[in-house]
């Protein structure tokens, strides 16, 4: 197992390379996911507020 982590003496290069790849990919994924989620929450709240403020204007055609 230690031999595996030693990477034939290149551990100081192989593991950081994999770590940077994982961090950058996780970073863009999490940022994109959060941005979408935040906007969906805001849109839902706004649509609900509009429906409550003017119930007579809400009609079945809009889905």
């Amino acid at each position, binding site marked *: 197992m230690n031999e*595996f982590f030693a*990477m*034939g*003496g*290149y551990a100081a*290069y*192989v593991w*950081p*390379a*994999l770590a*940077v*790849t994982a961090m*950058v*990919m996780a*970073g*863009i*994924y999490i940022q*994109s*996911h959060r*941005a*979408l989620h935040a*906007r*969906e929450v*805001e*849109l839902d709240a*706004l*649509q609900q507020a*509009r429906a409550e403020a003017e119930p007579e204007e809400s009609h079945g055609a809009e889905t």
Partner: protein
Amino acid sequence: MSSAFHRFANPARFMRYSAVILPWSLWITAALIAVGLYLALFVAPADYQQGDSVRIMFVHVPAAWMALFVYTNMAVASAVALIWRHPLAHIAAHGSAPIGACFTLIALVTGSLWGKPMWGTWWVWDARLTSVLVLFFLYLGYIALADAFDDGAKGAKAAAILALVGFVNVPIIKFSVEWWNTLHQPASVIKMGGPSIHASMLVPLVIMALGFTTFFVAVLILRMRAAIVGAKLRTLQIALIERGA
């Protein structure tokens, strides 16, 4: 042809289809990267010259391919946005840019970490490395330009033109290792006469590249959905303000 084109360019339809594709693309990404990493770290042999440092290749090369693939995608989407003014084309190009910048950053950093033990230096100002650094700045320039205008349509147009002009860099990167002397090794997979790399390394490399591609699809869907929801949000906010006034 053009009717099929229009069918997919409809934002409402995109929202329906992408909701189905998104979970699939995430699961396929997880499976491909798990299998690819297992083969890359445990099954593929150490290189006879480079030892275990060659394992950096399994993230470096797919990331570099994606850097070019995503830029090409962005340039095509920008052309479609300029010529046919499809509502989704600019959203696709704009959503691609940060993902492409991330892949380019990964290619640059992992390449540096591979270059230090193999070439004895973190960086050289040769054609391949410099042209990839230019690609990174093109991505950043595109993002900055697209968001620099108060009028979103103007920013979209300026950024689309930058994406098209910058496309000249893509073939320069691809052929830089043949046109100029460089420390960087020449292509060993996508070249005339077929790959010159052994299957035990080629298979994990291709699996990782496919995993990175489905990852790109998943993140692009997230970013395009966020842009469409954001547009809906703005329309609604303006309608509320007008009604209130």
